């Protein structure tokens, strides 16, 4: 291998290892923080930012579902699941990304920017020209898994859950 090629490859290897290291480590000092920001910019540009959570630091402890409640002019109220329920053998694969959107992001307080675009999307999706939509509401229903206790483990089939509801956004269409 030519010397110049080797220098180039070594630089490439060191850069990649640097990006892996600095995007992964916490910001403990100013230098670290500056390099981390630069490394993150490169990682975002090529789409390799690190996020290997795999149930870290803790698995979530609740099942969560988001719903759209549509109120029509004639007083009809209909509730739709945000997640599309795909059919067929590929359903679990197609469903996974809907789950990510609905269960992890749409309900997340840090992702409030998603709510208005979601309202627009569902308004178009469920519009009825003869019976216009008056208001739309996105809400979340969730069920906390019974806290773990060393004394008695609930059966996998009948683990008790605490049901909760939360309205994420309500939008009147006349507004």
């Amino acid at each position, binding site marked *: 291998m030519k010397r110049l090629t080797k220098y180039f490859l070594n630089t490439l*290897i060191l850069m990649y290892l640097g990006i892996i290291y600095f995007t992964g480590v916490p910001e403990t000092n100013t230098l670290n923080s500056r390099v981390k920001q630069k490394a993150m910019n490169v990682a975002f540009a090529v789409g390799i930012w690190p996020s290997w959570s795999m149930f870290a630091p803790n*698995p979530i402890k609740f099942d969560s579902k988001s719903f759209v409640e549509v109120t029509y002019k004639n007083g009809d109220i209909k509730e739709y699941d945000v997640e599309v329920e795909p059919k067929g053998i590929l359903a*679990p694969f197609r469903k996974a990304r809907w789950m990510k959107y609905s269960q992890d992001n749409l309900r997340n307080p840090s992702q409030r920017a998603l709510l208005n675009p979601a309202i627009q999307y569902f308004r178009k999706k469920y519009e009825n020209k003869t019976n216009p939509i008056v208001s739309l509401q996105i809400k979340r229903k969730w069920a906390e898994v019974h806290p773990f206790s060393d004394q008695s483990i609930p059966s996998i089939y009948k683990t008790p859950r605490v049901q909760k509801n939360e309205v994420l956004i309500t939008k009147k269409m006349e507004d």
Partner: protein
Amino acid sequence: MNTFGKYWNKFFFEEKPTEGMALFRIIWIGLILMYFIADLGNVQDFYGPHALISLHTTREQFPFIHANLFHMFNLSYEFTYGLIIVYGISLVMSLFGFLTRPALIVALLCMTSLHQRNIWLLSSSELLMRTITLLLIVSPCGHSLSIDSFLGRFSPGFRNKRNWPLWSLRIIQIQISVIYLWTVWHKLKGETWIEGTAVYYATRLEDLTNFTVPFLLNSLFFLKLMTWGTLLIEFSLGFFIWFKKMRKPIIITGMIFHLCIQYFMSIPFFELFMIALLVNFFTPEELKAFADKTINSFIEGIQESTLGTEIKEKIIRTLRGQHETAN
């Protein structure tokens, strides 16, 4: 320093057979192709002009400079479906190893554009797809078991060396280790992993449940064993896998571990991706032997078939010639 330099050179630049990388390319791109097919039904909802998230929102919420073809063209169904078609073709070309490197570059560009069109749908699976495909581009994965290597017999433009420096494989291996060590490090910050309750919570999530084994999942002993066992296995996959004597048992344990997660939990693709990635820890010689054995058994099958002698000879010559092309 000199000794370090020698180790560095041996570690990154020793030349080894490329069949292993080629085998990995076929498995990896095969999985991405499956993902691609599964995602086809989501085109209108996720990527089109009337998708769940508008391009405007994506731009506002993801302001980093990033590779995304959607920002360069007018968002329309024609463009969206055009991108999907180009992506599909480039994946098929990468799978069969035809113009492998350019095909992989196009595939990565399309993949990144689609992923970054709506980042709120992404999980670790998509991140793995992008990271490893990027590394495949710089690897010799098209040098063997590919149409390119077959065409190399007739055209010098397609001719590539069958032995190649290890550096791209090493970066993939390091990346895999980092994934495992990163997750263990972050898990150790969570109380459920320390207390031994994480598997209880993870397996009680209804939407993520696949199949169940009540005997294990209702037992305090096994729940704790599985939680701490996960930490131990993941740490081993990140660290001990580099030790020669422990490598093979750890690879096998890792594969079984991911299969078990796939059995218990409905996490599409991620576990399959991780199993595929572990293949990279077999040595290039081991993988070459496996590839040769597979081709030989295929040749034996053809010899025993009822095909005409002339056709048989042609196929066998092609297969033999393909993996006997000299450096």
